[in-house]
């Protein structure tokens, strides 16, 4: 019983530490320095796809790459981001499930997310928008302007 309370206590302390780190942590410099690159998380299991998105975004944004939904969830506990680019077909936990986990966290409940996916059949767009994604950009990315435009629009709407 004591052990259980200890565990609870640890959890509570961890949560408090996280809250504190949010208040004075890595987020703060971004807020103070408006010209710094805005941070985007990319979750895609295909390394070539990640490389391509990095090449398209270039130096405009700070890009955090994650190969799986689990890596992304773990990393997001520590480092907040302003936008998500999420592939749908991911090993273990797909992009839709990942987004719902992200949205469970009140800190990220309103962070915009783009489904960046090769699922481009009729009805897919509607499905992803209904799942809570703000945008749906299809792969192959034939016109990178569509991706860049969507990112700018969503980040612009947020500030």
């Amino acid at each position: 019983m004591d052990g259980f309370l200890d565990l609870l206590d640890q959890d509570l302390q961890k949560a408090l530490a996280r809250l504190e780190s949010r208040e004075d942590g890595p987020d703060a410099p971004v807020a103070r320095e408006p010209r710094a690159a805005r941070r985007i998380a990319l979750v895609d299991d295909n390394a070539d796809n990640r490389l391509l998105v990095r090449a398209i975004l270039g130096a405009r944004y700070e890009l955090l790459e994650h190969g799986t939904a689990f890596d992304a969830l773990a990393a997001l506990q520590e480092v907040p981001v302003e936008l998500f680019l999420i592939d749908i077909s991911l090993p273990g936990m797909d992009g839709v499930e990942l987004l719902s986990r992200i949205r469970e966290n009140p800190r990220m409940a309103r962070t915009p997310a783009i489904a960046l996916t090769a699922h481009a059949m009729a009805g897919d767009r509607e499905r992803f928008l209904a799942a809570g994604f703000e945008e749906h950009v299809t792969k192959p990315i034939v016109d990178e302007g569509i991706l860049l435009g969507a990112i700018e629009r969503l980040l612009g709407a947020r500030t």
Partner: protein
Amino acid sequence: MKAPRLRHVVAFLVLTGGGILTASYGWESRSVLVVGILLSLLATWLCLTLSRRAARVQELVRFRTGELEWEMAERKRAEAEREEEGARFRAVFEHAPFAVLTVGEDGRILMANPKAAETFGYDRGDLAGRPVEDLVPPRDREAHVTSREGYSRDPRPRPMAERGSLTALRKDGAEIPVEISLSSFATRRGRAFLAFIQDVSPLKTAKEAAEAANRAKSAFFTNVSHDLRTPLNSVIGFANILLKNPEGRLAGDELLYLGRILENGKNLLSLINQVLDLAKIEAGKVEVERHPVVLSTLVRAVAGELASQVREGVRLGVEVCEEDGPIQTDEGKVRQILVNLVGNALKFTEKGSVTIRVHADPATRCPRTLEIVDTGIGIPRGEWGAIFEAFRQADQGTARRFRGTGLGLAISRSLCLVLGYEIEVESEVGSGSTFRVVFDPKSDPGRA
């Protein structure tokens, strides 16, 4: 009758003769003679009467015997008939391909056929006498009693419940989907109810198998589409990035080659999209969503979108009647047909014009046909049908000169089929082609 009469005459003669002989020997012979004659007369009458009686009795006996024989035959026949009827009933009851139960007013099973025993997993003799609720899952038992009582108040033949809503309980505890028809009949001990019960699990299994196959087909399309598009993301994406050549390090040839990689990547993407479109349409995986669509607006929009594909020396024209009435159709599909047909026309027309024309009914202003008229290379008459088949272009030389998948027309025709439209072509080699979509082929025999 004749034989007795002869006997009587002989008896009469003998007696009379005896009388005369007696009379001739004694004295007082006269009175003896009279008495003798009288006696013989009496005896003759007696004989006559008796023999008549006997004949009647005999006749009666014969008649009665005949009657009895007939009655017996009749009884036998009736018995045979009853037996036959019983056999007929038993044959139906025993060999019915579905379970049959008769149930008394007290809710106990009176009779069960072999199929019933099989369906519910009991031994044959084990069903009779049980409450019929033993065959109902516990959660439904109370409702079953109520509905049974309801049925006995109005016992017309009818299905027991809506299709697909009944579940029965087997002896081993397994539940099976069933369909049940009810009827009733009168017996010496009150009313009995008949239940015809069909185990529909095989039907359900077949339906589920079909649904599973359908799901597998959908999943296959989804996976193929996703997995073919994924590698193209690298091909098209990186070619795009290199082509920007931001630091100017790539030479003219290299940029040309990169351009070819990009172009072919895009062609492959469009081929994948078209093949999947066609496969989906042909697998019946395409749903039609009809809404009111103003065709002139759609035509202008598509013409605007395709402006970039118009060659120098070719004019893309739109001829629509103003204020055309909306038609109930699937806008996305009509757009796709339009893009395919106009795109084709532009591809095969090196000079002259491509015109999109909508013919509307003069009275109702409702569009009846959509025409795409070009002044391109044309199609030989013998090829008019084949061009609508997948992967066919009029000749391979054309295919080489005008790159394309040859799927656009096949997709357009399939989409027209889905929408209930007709698509046709008229063409002359060297002067051009007209592709025509007829929106209501049945009511429009005299189209222009």
